[in-house]
């Protein structure tokens, strides 16, 4: 009887420890009555936009760059550097203008324009200035701390981008319709976070201890 109980306990523990959760759902972006008012680029941008610039602006729209991350609260995750993370500078735009990485990863900046660009950050988590770089130059910048790192180009002040440096390997990007699907989440308590420069930061704690697939839809609020 004693050995039977031990086997049962072991099997329960192993199921709990190694079972993986799946969480999926839809992220809804806010609809604000004042959505047409935003921080601008007056005095900063050219009035004439090339067709390439218009296409990149479309790809860089908020709904195409929403990342959702799951931060374990009940255990410490093993972090591995994100690989091949690239941010290009094309048509005087960072493309993509939002990337997510694990801390300790290197982001490669590629100048694809036929004029010089630089990349700088004034964020306390990673202050750097890589200087002016010619066409085709690739520069790797390691991001050692987690946090939100805002980027700019000194030569073209209208350019801006964000690196979301995370202390968790569990994150994914939602598709253009806002659908996300995060697999292989170990059992544990997580804080769900969503960050984008255009929306209010979202945080919520969730308990995943049953090794199941759950659906969670999230409605975001506009940035005040």
């Amino acid at each position, binding site marked *: 009887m004693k050995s039977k109980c031990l086997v049962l306990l072991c099997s329960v523990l192993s199921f709990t420890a190694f079972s993986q959760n799946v969480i999926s759902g839809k992220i809804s972006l806010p609809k604000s009555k004042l*959505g*047409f*008012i*935003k*921080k*601008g*680029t*007056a*005095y*900063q941008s*050219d*009035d*004439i*936009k*090339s*067709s390439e610039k*218009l296409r990149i602006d479309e790809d860089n729209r908020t709904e195409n760059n929403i990342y959702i991350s799951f931060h374990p609260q009940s255990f410490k995750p093993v972090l591995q550097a994100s690989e091949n993370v690239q941010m290009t500078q094309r048509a*005087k735009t960072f493309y993509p203008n939002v990337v997510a990485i694990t801390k300790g990863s290197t982001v490669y900046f590629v100048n694809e*324009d*036929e*004029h*010089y660009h630089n990349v*700088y*950050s*004034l964020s306390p988590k990673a*202050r*750097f*200035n*890589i*200087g*002016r770089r*010619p*066409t085709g130059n690739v520069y790797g910048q390691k991001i050692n701390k987690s946090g939100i790192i*805002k980027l*700019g180009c*000194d*030569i073209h*002040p209208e350019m801006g981008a964000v690196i979301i440096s995370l202390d968790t390997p569990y994150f994914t990007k939602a598709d253009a319709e806002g659908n996300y699907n995060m697999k292989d989440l170990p059992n544990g308590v997580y804080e769900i976070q969503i960050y984008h420069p255009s929306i209010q930061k979202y945080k919520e704690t969730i308990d995943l201890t049953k090794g199941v697939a759950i659906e969670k839809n999230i409605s975001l609020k506009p940035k005040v």
Partner: protein
Amino acid sequence: MRILSILFFCSLSFFTEAQLEVELNAWIDIEQSIGQTNSHYYYNEIHKDFKTLRLGIHNANFLTKVTFKESFKLNARLSQVRYKGKKLNTLHWPLLNLQYSPEGKSFAISLGRFITPFGYFNTQQHSKKRTFINLPLAHSYYNKISAKTGFLNFDMDHIVLDGKEDWGTTLLYYGGYSNGILTNWQFNDEKIKLSAAITNGSASLLSDLTDFSDLGFIARLKFQPKYFWEQAFSINYGTFSQASKEVTEVSSEDVTVSNFILGTDAVLGFGHWEFVLELMYGSYLAPTQTSVFDGQSTPSEDNFNLFSGYLNIKYELPAVSGLYLAYGLDVLHFFSETTINGDTQIWGKNVLRQNIGIGYKVNEFLLLRTNFMTQSVKDKAAWEQNTFRTTLTAHF
């Protein structure tokens, strides 16, 4: 102006969200400055009453770009600046234009009050884009050419007309705006840019939105020979005149000054270095003091030529992101000996200015700059017009 503001905000309510996008920005400059014994607003931007250490708001600005149905834009800047270096003036619209720029096309047309498309410095309207606090000599040093009476005479700094002091004009209007119609074009993947404007006056003229008595043409061609090098050429020809009761009482001739300026500017960048060079040749055809012939006073005109140029060097410290050191050399050279009433003289005193500056971007909203400027003018001790200025620019 108040009616314009009300009309502007009321017009926004006629559009739906899909048809309208409103972009907002603002900035304010808080400045601490100190001048020297011969400081004067018309020479070194420090008012003669403020030679001791002074802290105050230098300018406050609210910017908006309203896009209607993707092709039409309204650009506006509402501003309050320290008038003649002393008190803040009333709110005014230095920039107010309606722009047509169809999506995917390579041109734009603007009507109203826009940034003067002459030279490099005018494009640096936002404080945070400026390396130094001081304006270049071409924009800040007053020459003896008055819009009301022409040449001020050799031994005069200024003249009192209609009860107001007139110190002449700067080579380029310090505010950097013109009124009229402007077209911008881009070619060859943005490597070539052309701007041309028909304006109500020369680029030197300080004029308001409703003064259409003068005419001017301003154009700028910018191209990019190499990825690290932008080169541009600018041209301006126009007139400036302002009615003066006292002058029209003694002469039936209208006082009109014609002004020609040719300029070139280059921006070069390597690693953490940036070099900006801007050169200008200016020429005025201006009325002089009346000459006496057969006992009759007759108006006459003369040519007044000058050269202006500056070189700014900026180095961004790679180890301290946001920090830069800068040096600037700025000259104003008057030439062409002018003979008036038997006197042959150079019509202005040459000026040599050196700037040393440090700037630090504290974060994305704050820029701190400090600027020591030394200025020497012929026959005056070099230190008499030195300035020390520190500015905190808060912006979003």
